[in-house]
């Protein structure tokens, strides 16, 4: 059994958070560049060029890409041959979150849902665990902003709604979101599982690298159709009109109940900050 000290986990989490807040990942940057070349609206092109310029400034001056440095969301894969010594893994990740948001001068955005009083240290992080083979721990992190998260939706569809129903749900959700979630967006869709599982699948879909093809040809075809339909809505960069409303559509599916077809759609903004580390 391999032993990892909890301090090592906390430190890695802190560094992931600080690094992600100022460095736009390569796949996101390239996606935005492709959108800039494809966009036909002059205003849309201007917006995209400023978003790309913002990424340069953020990197060069170590200044957060966006003031909404998000809730800290983690997908963690734990090998069966590894154990954490010291704090438990959840506490270690929250400790790293606390120090990352503090030492990185990032905005603390967690608050009580009713009193709205700020928690003050951006905890608790949202953590999803999976167990795998091996002796490593893989930590995937995303800074998830509120503006795009608010435009997300979940529907318990009828099995008879079929693929066409799912496509329509996705397009209508993005039509109704319009300029609000900072387009061009990335859309994560989870199909199947149950109520909560579909939402987790939708979120996890966002972690797939942009433009990495879906291994399932049926889902790849659905992604292509939804991508084109959303870009034909006309919303465009920041909603000022244009043909680049989404940078990518990522679908994941899992078996579900014979009576159900849960579909969740998680919207991500163009400031798609995600990174991972294997310890």
């Amino acid at each position, binding site marked *: 059994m391999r032993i990892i000290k909890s301090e090592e986990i906390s430190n890695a989490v802190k560094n992931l958070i600080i690094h992600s807040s100022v460095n736009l990942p390569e796949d996101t940057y390239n996606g935005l560049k492709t959108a800039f070349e494809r966009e*036909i*609206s002059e*205003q*849309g092109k201007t*917006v995209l060029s*400023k*978003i790309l*310029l*913002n990424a340069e*400034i*953020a990197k060069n*001056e170590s*200044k*957060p*890409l*966006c*003031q*909404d*440095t998000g809730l800290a969301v983690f997908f963690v894969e734990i090998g069966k041959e590894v154990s954490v010594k010291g704090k438990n893994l959840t506490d270690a990740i929250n400790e790293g979150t606390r120090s990352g948001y503090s030492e990185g*001068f*990032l*905005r*603390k*955005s967690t608050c009580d849902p009713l009193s*709205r009083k*700020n928690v*003050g240290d951006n905890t608790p992080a949202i953590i999803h665990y999976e167990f795998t083979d091996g002796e490593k721990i893989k930590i995937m992190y995303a800074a998830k902003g*509120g*503006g795009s998260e*608010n435009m997300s939706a979940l529907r318990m569809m009828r099995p008879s709604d079929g693929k066409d129903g799912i496509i329509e749900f996705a397009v209508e959700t993005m039509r109704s979101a*319009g*300029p*609000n*979630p*900072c387009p061009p967006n990335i859309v994560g869709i989870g199909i199947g599982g149950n109520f909560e599982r579909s939402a987790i699948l939708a979120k996890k879909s966002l972690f797939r690298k942009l433009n990495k093809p879906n291994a399932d040809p049926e889902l790849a075809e659905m992604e292509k159709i939804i991508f*084109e339909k959303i*870009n*034909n*809505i*006309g*919303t*465009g960069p*920041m*909603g*000022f*009109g*244009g*043909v680049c409303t989404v940078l990518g559509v990522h679908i994941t599916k899992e078996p579900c109940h014979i009576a159900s077809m849960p579909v969740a759609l998680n919207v991500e*903004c*163009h*400031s798609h900050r995600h990174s991972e580390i294997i310890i």
Partner: protein
Amino acid sequence: MDPIKITAPLDDDIILNLKTGDDVLISGTIYTARDAAHSRLVKLIEENKPLPFELKGQIIYYVGPTPEKPGEVIGSAGPTTSYRMDKYAPILMERGLKGMIGKGKRSAEVKEAMKKYKAVYFGAIGGAGALISKTITSSKVIAYEDLMSEAVRKLTVVDFPAIVVNDVYGGDLYEEGREKYKDKFNK
């Protein structure tokens, strides 16, 4: 077309000249407020108590910046989504507010109030907080420090870039833009 340079606070002459789709560069003094601060401002109005700043002619920027590092004027400071302030915006316009900067759609009530009270809604680029912060030359918390990033700040801005989304004539860039580029992808 070159951007239109305007200076805040705004008067009606400036407002009436602005049209949906115009690029503007805003200079002068503006104030920040998000949900929590709006809720407090409106409560003060309802209780006939004085506000922390005079609303007449002012622009409110919907923003909650990141904490500034030592030596910085302000942290990253891009717009937040505006519809959350829709509930509070009409009463502020009634009291003299002339401009709002944010991102995303406004309600029918807010758009009506903009026509009625002669006010304009500007869209800024969401997710460009590092870029936008360069146009902010001073920042001072003037109220509600306990709200942390949501405190009310008085900002001095120089050539802050924005675009007129809703003008006083009922124009709406989000609707017009979408109509123009509908079904144009891959054509």
